[in-house]
């Protein structure tokens, strides 16, 4: 649902910006939309948008918890056990 949310917000945002550009430049909607889409020459925004979706996917599929379960929890418990034995 997070990925869908980001997608919806991005589409709505781009439509809003295109609508404003239609008013500013007095050009047809599709011309403005094509010029607005970050394809060429500045590709940096594409990387940012991909980054946003990667973060959204990371949160959506709970990657932190999964990785913690797979790699992190074992060593943490061991540390806890060691501390417990020291205290006792």
């Amino acid at each position, binding site marked *: 649902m*997070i990925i869908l949310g980001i997608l919806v917000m991005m589409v*709505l945002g781009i439509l809003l*910006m295109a609508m404003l550009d239609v008013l500013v430049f007095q050009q047809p909607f599709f011309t403005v939309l094509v010029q607005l889409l970050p394809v060429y020459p500045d590709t940096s925004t594409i990387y940012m948008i991909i980054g*946003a979706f990667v973060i*959204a996917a990371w949160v*959506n599929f709970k990657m932190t918890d999964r990785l913690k379960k797979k790699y992190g929890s074992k060593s943490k418990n061991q540390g806890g056990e060691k501390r417990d034995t020291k205290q006792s």
Partner: protein
Amino acid sequence: MTLSKVNTVDTFTLQLVFLLSTSIIFGTPSVVPDSWLVGIVAFFPACLLIVIYSTMLALQEDRGLYPMLEKAWGKVIGKGFVLIYSTYFLYIAARNIRDMIELIMSTLLRMTPVPLLTTMFVLLIAYTVLGGLHAIARFASLILWLILFMLLTLAILLMFSSSIILEQMLPFLSKGMWPVVKSAFSFSIWFPYGEIIVFLVFQPQLGGAKGFRKITLYAFLSTCIILSLTDLIQIWTLGLEDKKYSVFALLDAARLINIANIITRMDAIIALIIIFGTLLKCTVFLLACTEGVARVFNREAKDFAFPLAVVAGAFSILVTRNSAEHVTEGLKYVIYTLHIPLQLLVPLLTLLLIRIRYRKGATT
């Protein structure tokens, strides 16, 4: 679950810094010579917005904006409006980020690539959003003192460097009062005063209708005084003509400080004020946006903080092609297509619908 409320002082400082932040960068739009008067004139009609918003809150037992929209317009249309408001807040956040990036690019970090600056800034915003409204409000208290101290220092230093010439504000009202009133109604009510609508989203955590009315009135009054004073400082130092053509007038005024060739280049101080202020303003907008999206898609708001912040960063690059278009779009088209409908018309219609649907005695 009951939400703990942000205290009154923190709410006031949050609103004040929010209203001041980007307005200080550009000042009151210099479409008329006596721009310092515009802010004062705009204050009175802006108070009507407080009346509308607080009446909405009072009628719906201090619910936030989003539940109010759903209650008034029904589930489906209400959710549509929630999405529209979320997009509006995201767009305004993107514009504010662009404002700040333009300023940094022209004054401090000329060689740094824009995407790098933007990414670093939006990650900071997202991190602040994760702190929640309480943390942002406490952060605002800190920033407010910094802003006031730096503005006072600026005024004193300008005075000592003999840059303030009071005659520069003449001729006073050369075109009469009408252009001032017109400018107040066309621009200054909607930016910055009207943007206070974003605080309706957080009302369950703020003071409710009664608190909102009082605190916002004081915040508006303080903003009006501070903005008029900074406008006056700009006019006294730069003159009417230079101020009209200056993009960052306060920054240009700060550049004039020169005390015995020792204290110079104080524009960095102004840039710092603006960076802090913009950070807070963008955080508030992004927080409101995440709450809206989270409401529609049934997730926690913090899950959307980082992805939406990065999207806002990308939008800040896409939003306009150059700074001339950025200013024209902001002053002309955004006001009539976004600010007036979403700050005045939709709230008025919502208020009307709530009045009709939930008359006295009917359950809300």
